[in-house]
């Protein structure tokens, strides 16, 4: 059964799509964790859900709606450049209303159950060739942008005051990272779903930064953990009937726990 599945085209597509998404999520996750944007990622993702359900209601491609929803929220968060508690509560308020809208859109849409489940929990095995191509295009955009912005992005995330004094466009970079996060989130939703985006964007990066203090190596480790979790999760879900998203989140969480244990042991 398992080996026959491995020969199937849709499985290859799923594995490729998973790999593409994992690389992007692992890479950007390091900057997200460093800037303390977990909650913002969650909000961008849930507003992507609102966008997708909205698109379904008016008969558009939900992926486009998702992209639209995430980009609007990402851009607003970047431009407002809120800090600390203000950002926290603003995101909470917007997120809650956005989800409310999503619930309304879903109730207006006839194909209720499947669409909702796929958006919320992911449907990696449903990815077709055209979607895979789109995932790859967006992934290249995000990765090229991260490569070009790499040093100033690190500098501005860790040391914004000095970065600004050295002529780094801190404000513009903040908008840029939010837009890139929005693109990444829209990608990740298609694999793990709205509710589990953090499992690819946050968990691998959080684990990686406990394993090394070298910034470059942190990015590589984070990508590796995201890749192993995604591909491992897809393969396990072929061998076993449990959902892919569960396996992906379980593997990445196992890495996180192991990394924490290791850093505690290393200190004692």
């Amino acid at each position, binding site marked *: 059964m398992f080996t026959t599945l491995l020969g199937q085209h849709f499985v290859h597509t799923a594995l490729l799509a998973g790999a593409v998404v994992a690389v992007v999520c692992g890479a950007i996750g*390091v900057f997200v964790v*460093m800037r303390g944007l977990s909650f913002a990622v969650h909000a961008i993702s849930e507003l992507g859900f609102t966008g997708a359900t909205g698109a379904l209601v008016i008969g558009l491609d939900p992926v486009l709606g998702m992209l639209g929803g995430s980009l609007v929220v990402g851009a607003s968060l970047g431009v407002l450049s809120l800090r600390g508690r203000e950002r926290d509560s603003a995101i909470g308020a917007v997120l809650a209303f956005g989800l409310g809208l999503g619930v309304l859109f879903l109730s207006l849409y006839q194909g209720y159950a499947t669409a909702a489940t796929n958006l919320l929990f992911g449907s990696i095995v449903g990815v077709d060739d055209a979607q895979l191509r789109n995932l790859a295009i967006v992934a290249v955009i995000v990765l090229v942008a991260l*490569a*070009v*912005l*790499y*040093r*100033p992005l*690190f*500098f501005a995330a*860790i*040391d914004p*005051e*000095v*970065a*600004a*004094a*050295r*002529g*780094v466009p801190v404000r513009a970079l903040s908008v840029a990272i939010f837009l890139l996060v929005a693109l990444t989130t829209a990608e990740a939703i298609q694999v793990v779903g709205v509710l589990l985006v953090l499992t690819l964007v946050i968990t691998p990066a959080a684990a*990686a*930064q*406990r394993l*090394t*203090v*070298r*910034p*470059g190596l*942190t990015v590589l480790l984070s990508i590796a953990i995201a890749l192993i979790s995604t591909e491992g999760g897809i393969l396990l879900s072929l061998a076993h009937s449990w959902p892919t998203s569960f396996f992906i989140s379980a593997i990445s969480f196992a890495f996180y726990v192991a990394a924490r244990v290791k850093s505690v042991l290393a200190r004692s």
Partner: protein
Amino acid sequence: MTKAVVSVEGLALRFADRELWHDLTFQIDAGEFLAVLGPNGAGKTSLLRILLGQLEPTSGRVVIDRSGIGYVPQQRAFDRDLPLRGRDLVRFGLDGNRWGAGRLGAPERKRIDDVIAAVGASALADAPLGRLSGGEQQRLRVAQALVSDPGLLLADEPLLSLDLAYQQVIVQLLDERRRSAGTPVVFVTHDVNPILTAVDRVLYLGPDGWAIGPVDDVLTTETLSRLYGTEIDVLRVRGRVVVVGTPDAEHVHHVH
């Protein structure tokens, strides 16, 4: 012949209904070591932020070349789990503003090692930044400011949480830099004593006005009494300047 690197004309800063200063006018010459003194809330950090272009003054004009500023910001602890070593922080000063990921060449790596050695932090270079003490982070910050070969150094309380020996190391480093490269140093501090041997002029921002000039002209009973609008005594005790009677003198002692 010296030439002005920074020129400040008729600067005023007002927050809501509180005016910090007005008509602030001075120049900073190449190679000059200027200390900025004053009580808490006098606008010392705000003045630095205006020089950096990060804060708009209420009125007035600043002429400054911002392309090569080395900045040591007020101490702020780094997150404990940052994936960053001491040398990565210093490296930001050299190439953090360049695009791309980039690798450093051997001369640049050596430059980073040298400046880290100069602040006595070689042993900390590969340690996780977030686990270092405040003083250790502060020394790396000074190294970060120096590594960029700055045309102007702005330092906000750079001696905070340093012991006396390292205070002297940092002051001597900045002193050397301005003598050898002509880089002016603007040094915000609440205590002039650690820098008495290096400082050329003092800018004192008081509640009732400001004054600028050599230490012996500004840190006097007459001048400070005028700037505070109350009786202040300035004493010289064993080569140290002791100011008695400022409203926040007690607070300053608690900071230590």
